[in-house]
C-alpha cells in the first residue's frame, strides 16, 4: 500500500512538474495540452491626426489575433501602444512595451521616422518588431537587427512608379513636387533619374507640407506637362492641387505615391496612386477576411499589412510552442527570421531577407475612376 502511495505520489509529482512546465512556456500549440500563452504589442497612431489609419491597423491586428488563437489554440493577447505617428510618442510606447516582460514582439510602428526612433530600443531588448507601412529604404540596411516589414520599400515604389509613367503615360514633360520631408525627397531621388533617362523633361518643385494653396505652382504647369508627380503624405493637399489644376483648366494627370492613398480624402478622377498594400477586396482568397473585417467599418490599405505582420508573429510564437519551448523574445525573434509563408492576406508570399525586408514585397497601382473610386491596375 505504502509502495502504491509512493508510486501514486511520484506520478502526481511528475504530472504537476509537467503541468508547471507547460503553463510556464506552453507545449505544443496544437497538441491539446495547456495553452501556449504570450503577449504581443501593437504600436499604431490609435489617436491623433491619423487615428483613422491607426484604428484600422488596431482592428486588423485584433482580427488576426482572434483567428490565429482559434486556429493555433494559442492564448496570445494584445498590448496597445499609441504613437500618434510621433517619434517621441513612439519612443514612450516602446519603453512601456519593452519593459513589460510578457510582451515578446511588436507589430508596428506605422511611420519610418518612428522606426528610426525606436529601432535601437527594440534592438537592445532583443525584441522583434514588424511594421506594416514603414517603407523608407534606410530602415533595412542593417542598423536595426530586430526590424522587419511585410511591405516593400520606397526604392521599389519609386522605380515601379517611374517605369509605369515612362512606359504607359508617355509624357514629354513632368512636374515633380516634393513636400520637403525625407519620404518625399527620397522618392524624388529614386524617380527622377529614371524619368530623365527616358528623355522626359523634369521640372522639380518643392513646397512645404503645411501649404494649402497651390495656385501659383499650378500656373507653372505647362501644356506639355501631362503628368504631375506628388510624392506627398497629406492627401487633402493633393486634392487641393487637383482642384487648382481644374480651376486653371490644366489637363495634367496627378500621380501620387502611397502617402496619398486615401480614398476618402484624395479622389481626383483620372489620378494614379500607388500603395504598399493591395485592395484585399479584389483578392478572392481574402473573401472571408473581408467579411470578417467589415464589422469594423470601411478600411483601406493600412489594415491588411498589419494583419499579415500580426500573423507572422502569431505563427512564430506557435512554432516555438510546438517545438516544446517556452516562448521568449529571443526564440520568437529567431522564429520570425525563419518565416516562410507561401501566401498571405496581401496575395503574396512573406519571407524576410537578412535585413528584415520582405523578399516578395511589391507595390500596387490604382487609378481613380470618374466616380472617385480606386481601381487596381493589374500587373
Amino acid at each position, binding site marked *: 500500500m505504502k509502495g502504491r502511495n509512493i508510486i501514486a505520489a511520484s506520478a502526481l509529482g511528475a504530472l504537476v512538474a509537467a503541468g508547471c512546465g507547460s503553463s510556464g512556456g506552453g507545449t505544443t500549440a496544437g497538441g491539446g495540452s495547456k495553452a501556449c500563452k504570450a503577449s504581443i504589442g501593437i504600436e499604431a497612431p490609435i489617436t491623433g491626426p491619423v487615428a483613422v489609419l491607426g484604428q484600422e491597423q488596431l482592428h486588423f491586428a485584433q482580427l488576426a489575433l482572434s483567428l490565429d488563437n482559434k486556429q493555433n489554440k494559442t492564448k496570445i493577447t494584445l498590448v496597445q501602444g499609441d504613437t500618434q505617428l510621433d517619434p517621441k510618442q513612439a519612443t514612450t510606447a516602446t519603453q512601456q512595451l519593452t519593459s513589460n516582460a510578457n510582451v515578446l514582439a511588436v507589430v508596428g510602428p506605422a511611420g519610418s521616422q518612428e522606426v528610426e526612433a525606436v529601432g535601437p530600443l527594440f534592438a537592445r531588448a532583443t525584441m522583434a518588431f514588424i511594421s506594416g507601412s514603414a517603407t523608407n529604404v534606410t530602415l533595412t540596411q542593417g542598423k536595426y537587427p530586430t526590424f522587419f516589414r511585410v511591405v516593400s520599400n520606397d526604392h521599389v515604389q519609386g522605380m515601379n512608379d517611374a517605369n509605369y509613367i515612362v512606359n504607359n503615360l508617355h509624357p514629354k514633360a513632368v512636374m515633380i513636387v516634393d513636400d520637403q520631408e525625407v519620404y518625399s525627397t527620397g522618392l524624388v531621388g529614386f524617380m527622377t533619374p529614371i524619368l530623365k533617362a527616358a528623355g522626359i523633361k523634369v521640372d522639380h518643385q518643392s513646397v512645404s507640407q503645411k501649404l494649402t494653396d497651390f*495656385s501659383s505652382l499650378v500656373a*507653372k504647369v505647362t501644356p506639355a506637362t501631362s503628368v504631375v508627380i506628388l510624392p506627398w503624405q497629406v492627401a487633402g493637399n493633393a486634392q487641393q492641387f487637383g482642384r487648382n489644376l481644374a480651376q486653371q*483648366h490644366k489637363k495634367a494627370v496627378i500621380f501620387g505615391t502611397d502617402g496619398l492613398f486615401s480614398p476618402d480624402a484624395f479622389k481626383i478622377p483620372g489620378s494614379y496612386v500607388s500603395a504598399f498594400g493591395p485592395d484585399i477586396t479584389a483578392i478572392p482568397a481574402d473573401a472571408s477576411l473581408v467579411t470578417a473585417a467589415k464589422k469594423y467599418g470601411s478600411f483601406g490599405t493600412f489594415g491588411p499589412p498589419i494583419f499579415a505582420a500580426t500573423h507572422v508573429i502569431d505563427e512564430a510564437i506557435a512554432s516555438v510552442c510546438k517545438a516544446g519551448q517556452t516562448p521568449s523574445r529571443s526564440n520568437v525573434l529567431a522564429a520570425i527570421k525563419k518565416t516562410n509563408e507561401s501566401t498571405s492576406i496581401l496575395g503574396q508570399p512573406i519571407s524576410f531577407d537578412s535585413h528584415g525586408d520582405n523578399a516578395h514585397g511589391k507595390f500596387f497601382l490604382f487609378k481613380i475612376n470618374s466616380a472617385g473610386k480606386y481601381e487596381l491596375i493589374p500587373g
Partner: protein
Amino acid sequence: MGFFFQELVNGIVVGALYSLIALGFSMVYGVLKLLNFAHGDLYMVGAFAGYFVIQWFGGSKALTIPVPLLLVIMFVLAAALTGGLGVAIERFAYRPLRNAPRIAPLITAIGISFFLENAALLLFGGQFRIYNTSDFIPFSSGFQIGSVSVDAVQIMVVVLGIALMIALQQLVVRTKLGKQMRAVAADREAAEMLGINVNFTIAATFFLGSALAGVAGVMAGLLFNQVTNTIGFLAGLKAFTAAVVGGIGSLPGAMLGGLLIGMAESFITGYVSSTFTNLLVFGLLIAVMLVRPSGLLGQVQLQKV
C-alpha cells in the same frame, strides 16, 4: 504675359486673405500692445464654423438652401462665433493681465493658441474636413481671358475682402467707436480719464478683429477646401508678418503688408522656384524692415524724456 496675370490674380487673392487676418492682428496690437498669437486659431475656428454650416444644410452636393443664402449664413455665423470667442478670450485670459509685465499676456496668448488648437482636435478630430466648394460654386462660374482663369470664389474673396477693409477703415475714422478705439490706442489712461469705457472699447476691438479672422477662415475654406485644427499656425504667422511689415498698429499697413506677402509668394513661386519661396519672401521682408524698421506705413514712436 498670361502667366504673369495668372500669378498676379493668385497673389491678390491670397494677399487679400492675409490682409484680412493681419487687420485683426494689427487692431488688437493697436489698442492693447498685445501680440495675440491666438488670432490664427480664431481663423481656424471660423473655417470650421463654415464647414459645419455646409453640413447642416445638406452637405456640398445636396444643399437645401440657395448658395447665396448659405454664404451669408457661413460668414455671419463664423464672424459672430469667432467675435464672441475673441471677446471671451480677452475677458478671461487677457484682461486680468492687463497691468502685468508684457511677457505675461504674450505667454497667455501662446497658451490660448495651443488650447484652441487642441480643443478643435478633441472636438472635431485630426482629419481634414473638406468644403468641396466646386460642388456648389463650380469653376465654370468664373471667367477666363486667354490663359488666365479667375473663378467666382476668387472674385468673391477679393471683393468681400476689399469691402471689409474699407468698412473697417471707415468705422475707425468716422464713428464714435472708432474714435474711442483710436483714443485707447493713443493713451489708455488718458482715454479713461476722458470718460471712455476702455473695457468696452477693447472688447469691441477684439470682437471686430476676431470676426474678421472668422470671415477669413470661411474664405480660406472656400478657396483651399481643407480645414483641420492646425491651419491657424501658418496663417497667424503670415498675418503677424504682414502686420509688422505694413507697420503694426496701422490698418492700411496691415492691408498693404498682406497684399505684399501674397504677391511676393506668388511671383517668386512662378518666376523663381517654389523651393525658395519662403526664403526669398522672408528675405525681402527683412530687407524692408532694415530700410523701414517701423514698417511701410508705421509711425516712428517718439519717446518723451
